[in-house]
């Protein structure tokens, strides 16, 4: 039987969170709802990245590739197979990013530390260049090449049917919001389970001490590869959601700068706390919105805001918040029996 305080802590956190999640489409303006959706998607991507980065201890600078692959795969599918189902688009996006991550990860996990980071960056940029110079589009013949010339690598994705339902334009985002929330909750649940499974513990062991991990019989390279591939699943999932939300995918989402944003947001939130990447993603998106109010000097303002956050939260958002007694207590009660 649960301790009454544990139940109270969960109610205190989960009830308002659940109410907010359900009511957000009614409470937020259409613009803010889209930003909120984007923050949820970005959170999934950061959580996925953190399985490799924070949990396994490998810094990837090429995860944008898997995010972009998740969106582009569905875009090509729509163009060339005339598929209008979001579910098919979504699954194809995840499958593509998973295969891509498995292939690139197989090679990258042969290196560690800075060499691993450089390899992931190199593969990511190669993948990016295939879209920038149109090589991928050429694979689809003259129509593919024409698409490239028209969009310079960008692709349009229409509003797809969700569970066979075709939504009106004004209804689409509120409806799609619940798909994103479902994907977010499922991702958090699955990644949380992985993090607290024997496999997740083995990944942390690899991060902490590779030699000892080998000497208790953990197949280090193989598990790094598994972690990389699983990470690709969630990046592809996030990418596919992003493609449908934005209804356009551009090579920008494949560029290393986007990979760097993922890393930055994850570090901002805290790589050692499971919830850190989610906090980081939300704060990052929030800061970007604030900085966006300055038409000139947006990047300077974003840089200054990030510096401010880093100075105020040197242990990452999750790590610093954990020092606040009230929050720490609620956090510990939330974790009891769950972690």
């Amino acid at each position, binding site marked *: 039987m649960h301790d009454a305080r544990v139940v109270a802590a969960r109610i205190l956190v989960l009830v308002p969170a659940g109410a907010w999640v359900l009511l957000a489409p009614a409470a937020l303006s259409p613009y803010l709802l889209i930003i909120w959706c984007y923050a949820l998607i970005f959170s999934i991507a950061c959580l996925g990245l953190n399985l490799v980065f924070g949990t396994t201890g490998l810094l990837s600078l090429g995860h944008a590739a898997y995010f972009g692959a998740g969106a582009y795969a569905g875009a090509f599918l729509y163009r060339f197979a005339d598929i209008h189902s979001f579910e098919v688009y979504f699954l194809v996006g995840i499958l593509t990013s998973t295969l891509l991550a498995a292939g690139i990860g197989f090679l990258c996990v042969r290196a560690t530390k800075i060499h691993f980071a450089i390899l992931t960056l190199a593969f990511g940029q190669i993948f990016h260049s295939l879209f920038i110079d149109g090589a991928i589009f050429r694979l689809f013949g003259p129509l593919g090449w024409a698409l490239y010339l028209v969009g310079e690598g960008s692709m349009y994705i229409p509003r797809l049917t969700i569970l066979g339902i075709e939504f009106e334009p004004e209804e689409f985002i509120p409806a799609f919001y619940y798909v994103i929330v479902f994907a977010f909750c499922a991702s958090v649940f699955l990644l949380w389970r992985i993090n607290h499974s024997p496999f997740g513990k*083995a990944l942390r062991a690899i991060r902490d001490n590779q030699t000892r991990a080998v000497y208790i019989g953990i197949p280090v390279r193989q598990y790094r590869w598994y972690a990389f591939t699983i990470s690709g699943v969630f990046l592809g999932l996030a990418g596919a959601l992003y493609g449908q939300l934005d209804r356009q995918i551009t090579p920008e989402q494949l560029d290393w700068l986007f990979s760097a944003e993922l890393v930055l947001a994850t570090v901002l939130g805290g790589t050692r706390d499971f919830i850190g990447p989610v906090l980081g993603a939300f704060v990052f998106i929030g800061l970007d919105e604030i900085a966006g109010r300055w038409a000139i000097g947006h990047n300077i303002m974003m840089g200054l805001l990030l510096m401010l956050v880093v100075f105020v939260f040197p242990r990452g958002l999750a790590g610093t918040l954990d020092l606040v007694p009230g929050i720490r207590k609620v956090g510990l009660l939330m974790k009891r029996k769950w972690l």
Partner: protein
Amino acid sequence: MSLLRTQKLVKHFGDTRAVDGVDLIVSQGEFLSLVGANGAGKTTLVNLISAYLQPDSGHIFFQDQDITFLPVADRIKAGIARSFQLVNLFDDLSAFDNVALAVFSREGKTRNLFTLAEKDDAVTQETLEVLREFGIEDKRETLAGGLAQGERKLLDVAVAHALRPKLLFLDEPTSGVSTRDKAQIMDTVSSVVRAGKITAVIIEHDMDVVFKYSDRIVVMQEGSILADGSPDEIRQNGEVAAMLLGAPTST
């Protein structure tokens, strides 16, 4: 009956003959100490047997199977485990998790993606039992990095022991700890090893420890075996005693 046998094992680092044609036999159930001055080749020999290094030539037989070129994972499965000269733990994980990981790994359960580690009662019970055997059960929630040196040494051995090895190598388990902790560590390790009928090979510099706990002592010098015998035989070997204990040569 021999559990482990090396045959003309050689490892050179440039011009240095770290291990130079060593023929070592380790019998089932014995507590063997490898002693010798720094650079005598003790750790290199253990590194070769545990696949941390590959030999230049020679063979290693474990239970009469040639394991010379077996990878680490297969040697662990065969029943060889080791601890390290410098404590080698997962410092950001709790003492409990350090041991539990070894148990999960031995049981082939680290592939489980979606089962919660804490829900595995069998692993939890075994882990607590191992921690209890080593007298550090009350530290189970403490991060390994936050333990005292003596406790870290014990945990290091406990992790290796949790693999349930047939042959356990302990590389200087008492280095860097106080005299009082040394006795406690060795009493604990010795009782666990003997109770489990585990064959143990220990590298140690403290000759009081060596003479007190060993069934047999192998003395190494410049990569070769200089002497091999019971503690009494080694004590009575004047040349060896002089080298190890600084005692005058009796012959």
